[in-house]
């Protein structure tokens, strides 16, 4: 067990990080991510109001669709990253949105929402469980308990019931695999977790494999790969900025982000594939072939599905092209690596 965002979290279960990682890629892994923040926004114009805090298109989000984005500060730095789902209006004209935010940021995020969106009702779902089930067998396992999930598209959403309890099912995750994130009331959460674990296709997965899986999938960990100093453009998250938003602005840091979109950022988050097995971890400097330091690793480790070490980090834009040969400096020793495109391990989302 290890402390994480004020929660005591399992780093690994008896299978171990390597075994849990491979199990998730081959079968189905269950992650208890109940520490994450779940928030409901409701109000006239709540979608437009939320757009003043982030750069995604929320107004254009259809009912039961989920979108990834980031809360931005006035300099275009990232305060947190989040998932936003539009729920159908209960009263015509009143937007209803469901947000999932990072555990470590959730109190600050809610304070930020309350301060910036005074006309919107903000409800935190503090006691609800959030269970992620990920892997190629996740859909067939979950379909045995919750009818209708198999037909959900990637980033699709279902509001339904489990044992009489109201639940949300999102076809999304943090591993690069097909899978679901399921929000349930506490008692139903425990029952559902136990029911899933009774299935031989499912094993519990700890924080260690959660990290190695998301790293292989090229996904950012807030506070490491993105933070208040990095913009979405530097963070290679430009795809999450809405087309209309790029033209219209109206979000914090628009000036910087528009400039970076036009002229290119001075540094960029890239993937690094190391030539060998030796890990280059967070904090290691990145040098060019002449030995000049041009960046720093923000996440890195051994990739169980690739049998190689991989890393991500920020490098000067001049060294960010795919194929660029670089060195990660580990305990003074240069480890050869090259810039590769994300993801390291192919995503296997349903389309």
């Amino acid at each position, binding site marked *: 067990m290890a402390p994480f965002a004020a929660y005591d979290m399992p*780093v*690994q279960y008896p299978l*171990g*990080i*390597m*075994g849990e*990682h491979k199990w998730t890629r081959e079968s189905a892994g269950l992650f208890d991510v109940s520490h994450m923040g779940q928030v409901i926004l409701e109000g006239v114009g709540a979608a437009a109001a939320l757009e003043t805090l982030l750069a995604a298109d929320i107004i254009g989000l259809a009912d039961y669709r989920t979108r990834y984005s980031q809360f931005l500060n006035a300099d275009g730095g990232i305060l947190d990253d989040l998932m936003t789902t539009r729920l159908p209006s209960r009263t015509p004209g009143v937007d209803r949105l469901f947000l999932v935010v990072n555990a470590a940021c959730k109190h600050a995020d809610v304070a930020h929402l309350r301060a910036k969106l005074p006309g919107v009702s903000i409800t935190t779902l503090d006691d609800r469980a959030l269970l992620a089930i990920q892997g190629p067998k996740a859909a067939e396992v979950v379909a045995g308990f919750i009818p209708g999930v198999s037909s959900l598209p990637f980033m699709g959403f279902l509001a339904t019931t489990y044992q009489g309890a109201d639940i949300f099912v999102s076809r999304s995750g943090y591993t690069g695999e097909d899978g679901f994130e399921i929000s349930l009331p506490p008692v139903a959460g425990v029952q559902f977790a136990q029911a899933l674990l009774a299935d031989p296709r499912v094993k519990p997965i700890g924080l*260690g494999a959660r990290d*190695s899986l998301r790293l292989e999938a090229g996904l950012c960990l807030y506070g490491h790969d993105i933070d208040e100093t990095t913009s979405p453009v530097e963070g290679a998250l430009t795809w999450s900025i809405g087309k209309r938003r790029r033209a219209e602005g109206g979000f914090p840091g628009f000036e910087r982000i528009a400039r970076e979109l036009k002229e290119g950022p001075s540094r960029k988050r890239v993937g690094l594939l190391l030539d*060998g*097995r*030796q*890990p280059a*971890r967070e904090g290691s400097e990145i040098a060019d072939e002449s030995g000049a330091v041009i960046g720093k690793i923000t996440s890195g*480790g*051994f990739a*169980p599905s690739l049998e190689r*070490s991989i890393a991500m980090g920020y490098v000067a834009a001049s060294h960010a092209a795919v194929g660029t040969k670089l060195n990660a400096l580990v*305990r003074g020793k240069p480890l050869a690596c090259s810039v590769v495109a994300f993801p390291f391990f192919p995503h296997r989302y349903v389309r």
Partner: protein
Amino acid sequence: MSTVRYTKDHEYIRVDGDVAIVGITDYAQAQLGDVVFVELPAMGKSFKKGEQAAVVESVKAASEVYAPVSGEVVEVNSELEGAPALVNEDSAGKGWFVKLRVADQSELGALMDEAAYADYLKTLD
């Protein structure tokens, strides 16, 4: 007849004459989890007791391995390069790290024997 001694950092040293085999204990490998890489020292390198002699990298983290006694590296376990998991599978046998020529036998006296190490493990978590 070889003698095995242990450190508080969970290295073992198996001494046979003036050469000793150094590795990490079963307890240490279980704590580290899956070992994916071992950085071994160069042949001929000399260490003082307590100096960093190797680094063992698991999926979780990098951990330093210290020389239990002063000595010179006379052999490294090159099999670990292709098969680092030997540290998990057989830490006391095929998963050894280095062979040292012991510089000062008297340093062994400060280390724990099997029974003392077993007692020490009982005091941990």
